[in-house]
């Protein structure tokens, strides 16, 4: 398969990149790791006339914690996420998701921004990011806005991003005390797989051994975008964590999802797996709460 022809731009600063984005608009695509974009271009799914590489813009490559806010530049690679002490300490489930993504070769190239911006319902990073209630910074020459990741995804491949906008940063408030998060992705084989179902669950308790105060459960592959298991979340609030409770939350989550039959699996199976993975990720989250006490 051959790549279609395009012009290649390599801005060194963010303003320069934004300038190009506003100049070329829909004719341009930002290029991060290229692990998604190159394939879509070879398959002629997209044929942008201009590629604007983000790989030389240093400010997009940093991850740092300031105050209670973890800020991850959009061009931080997935391999870097797996190795970052900051990420592991504050967002272990994101680290789990990063480790599950692709292979070492892919992880070395793939970026967190590309994983979000490509908006694949099966992607490995959005579930935990949404579970941590992450926000994304969308920037263009004329200004920037902060969007909750929950509101960012619009459908498969569709996002809040406008033609001249770049996703520059992911912001995560460091989780409150007595909280934990778990992520599980399930595919056919152990790696290099498109997920059949993936789920991330976050809970925080009101006291070390207290009741569940917040719950966020995100389900992948079972809808046009990552879905919240709203009734399962509501069900958990104010209750005491237990295996039994998590199993019931899993049952509720099964009703919150809308999977379809496709060649990767039947809707029935995916729905059942949402139940299992919800239960298990909640248990992981609870395990993390307890291990921190």
């Amino acid at each position, binding site marked *: 398969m051959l790549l279609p022809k395009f012009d290649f731009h390599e801005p060194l600063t963010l303003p320069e990149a934004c300038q190009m984005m506003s100049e070329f608009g829909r004719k341009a695509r930002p290029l991060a790791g290229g692990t998604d974009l190159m394939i879509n271009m070879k398959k002629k799914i997209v044929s942008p006339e201009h590629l604007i590489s983000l790989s030389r813009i240093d400010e997009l490559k940093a991850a740092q914690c300031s105050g209670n806010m973890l800020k991850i530049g959009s061009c931080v690679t997935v391999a870097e996420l797996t190795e970052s002490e900051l990420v592991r300490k504050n967002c272990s489930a994101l680290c789990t998701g990063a480790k599950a993504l692709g*292979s070492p070769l892919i992880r070395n190239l793939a970026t967190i921004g590309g994983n979000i911006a490509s908006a694949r319902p099966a992607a490995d990073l959005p579930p935990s990011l949404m579970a941590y209630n992450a926000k994304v910074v969308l920037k263009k020459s004329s200004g920037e806005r902060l969007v909750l990741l929950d509101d960012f995804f619009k459908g498969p491949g569709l996002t809040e991003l406008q033609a001249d906008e770049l996703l520059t940063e992911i912001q995560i408030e460091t989780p409150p005390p007595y909280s934990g998060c778990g992520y599980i992705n399930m595919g056919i*084989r152990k*790696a290099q797989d*498109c997920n059949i179902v993936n789920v991330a669950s976050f809970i925080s308790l009101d006291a070390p051994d207290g009741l569940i105060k917040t719950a966020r459960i995100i389900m992948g592959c079972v809808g046009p975008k990552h879905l919240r298991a709203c009734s399962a979340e509501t069900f958990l609030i104010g209750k005491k964590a237990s295996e039994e409770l998590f199993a019931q939350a899993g049952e509720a989550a099964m009703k919150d999802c809308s999977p379809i039959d496709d060649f990767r699996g039947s809707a029935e199976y995916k729905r*059942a797996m949402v139940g299992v993975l919800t239960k298990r990720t909640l248990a992981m989250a609870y395990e993390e709460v307890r291990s921190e006490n």
Partner: protein
Amino acid sequence: MSQYDVINSRATRIDSQDKATGRAVFIDDMKMPGMLYGAILQSPLAHAEILSIDTSAAKKLPGVKAAVTSQEAGLIKYGVSPARYDETIFCYDKVRHVGDNIAAVAATDLETAMAALSLIKVEYREMPAVFTVEEAMSDGAPILHEEYPRNICAEVHQEFGDVETAFKECDLIKTTSFVNKRQDAAFIEPQGCIADYDLSGTLTLYSSTQVPHYVQRTLAMVLKLPVGKVRVVKPYVGAGFGIKAAANHIELAACLLSMKTGRPVKMNFDREQVFLHGRARHQFFHTMTTGVKKDGTLMALKHECYLNGGAYSSFGIATVYYAGSLLGGPYRLPNMKYDGYRIYTNLPACGAQRGHGGVAARACWEQQLDMIAEELGMDPIDLRLKNMMVAGDVTCNDLNMSSLGMKECIEAVKEGSDWKNKKGRLPKGKGIGMACGFFVSGAGYPIYRSDTYHGTAVIKLTEDGGTALVYTASAEIGQGSDTAFAMIAAEALGIPLECVRLESGDTDFGVDLGAYSSRQTLMTGHAVKEAAESVKLQVLEVLSRELKIPVYDMDIKKGVIVFKKEKPDFSGLRTRYIKEHRGWTDNPAPEEDLSFREASRIAYLAKGSIVGTGKYKPPELGGKFKGATVGTSPAYGCSAQVVELSVDMETGQIAIEKMTDAHDCGRAINRTSVEGQMEGSVSMGIGEALYEEVKFDDKGRVINADLAEYKIPTALDMPHVETIIVESNEPNGPFGAKEVGEGAIMPTIPAILNAVYDAVGLRIFELPLTSERVWTAMKIRAKG
């Protein structure tokens, strides 16, 4: 300590450095002056009449040098087996599957060639298509090839002994059915080639192939050239697994385009085209009925099998025979009846893949044997030990087990896996299972009826005597055959491996049927050994004359002449040698033994180039019945495996945790390569057992034609494999060697099936065992 100096060791492969550093040349690395790029137009429809093809616009595109269709290519039919030549380079009357070949172009670059393809106008009249065996055989179904009513490409009906009478004496009769899925071998290098028709009228094809010889013959036949004007050269190849064991359309099209343009033409399949070309493992539908005595004695097997063959025959006739004949062993089975049918459908053709024809059959039967053992209250290992053949046994279909370490294999895996403490004692969700298998060490007969040698080899000594040059037309495709033959040559000649240089994969080097049916180590190995022995004898004969010592009182070992009796005075020879090497700093000192290098320099001075040739052809093998040739071999390898796995009771996911694998390969030429084949087989077996399936939509289009969606095991999916090499001494093999390439896959799938049963108490009769399939089976059982 091994009695050998070179073989039976873990010698480093002669190609490993080149491959590790990227120096090894594959087709994709090759470029020639003036080279054009070819591309092939393939059908988007599964079954359609071709009303017209118009290449005029394509030809007019600047940069396009030729566009060819059946008009230019002609209608000479070819295929694998002469009994079913059913393909032409390009379709002319109709297309029979999505991806069927219609036209090809050559242009100055690939972009232009691709653009030219899109300018070729083809008018079709779409026809109803058949995709399943049932559809294809139903009344009134569209027919793919007029000569084959009901779309039956081939059928086999064999009976050895008397099955019905035997069943009457049985205490237990068991029937099961089983189905696998169409495979893709997922070799890492897609097919590719460069054709170069030169000004003298010689056609050279560089190709990623397993069989330079068969490709040479097909090119000569279809393009109407003398065999002597066609040369096929195989650079390094990124595996084949059977799929590259016949000429393909781009090889033929590239040659045709080169002949038309007078320029070299390169063509490649992309990954999707690998799937559209197909030729990998068929989908098999087996139904088997086995009868046994109370004590476990196997009495009879009745077996029926349907193969979804796809649009052309490819290897299919052999496949449908193998599916039956390879159940003749490794157990004593006095009565066997087989009815096999290979059916044409509007899908890419299936062909041969590792374990040709026997893998699904073996899976079906070995699972059934486990069920029988359970009903008889026997340990499955005991049932197998009770029935297993030993060296010297002949199967009911006349396959001769000239060596067979089956018992040793079974005992090795039983011991190695700690079977007796695990079988039936593992917690729920964990399971252990075993199975056995055997396979040919090279097909007893060539694909075309012929008295040809199956392999020839030439060894020439360099004039200084230091190096032996080995030339063989055999095919190194990643399995390590070059290293094996260099080792065999070194061993037989009595010199260190570093003193051998080997060239292979070129039809100019001789005849070799190539890398398929696990034949090369045994067959090419014989030819290389014979050539080496001839060279050795020629050197010793000259020495014998010079030193007045009978040849049989001398030998060559580790590069040194061994005098079995009294050491003669060879100082005269040494002086002659040294005189010819004035200024050399490494001349032998007086007290040193007479070296092979000195001796062969003396031989060269006496005789000119020292050249030895070798050849091999199996003796006449097998019975006299129809199809008796398929399954014959000069030797059979065999194996046993024990797998340990766990099943996630909530998701159905299977994790293979450990594999204990014993294989009888006769004498191991290179132990590391043997283990490599064993582990590779396990990997391929796990893939077919758990994940792999080529999937189609309702128009016959492949929907997972890439390695993202066609799932082969990754490194993380591989369990620890404990490999145990069992070495019988095969009387028909060079240094006692026989196969490991394909037989090693036989037990993997049924061992997994049996372990899943041990873990969750469910028998599953359909592959692959995806988590969903296992989960569904558990759910159906829970509902009762």
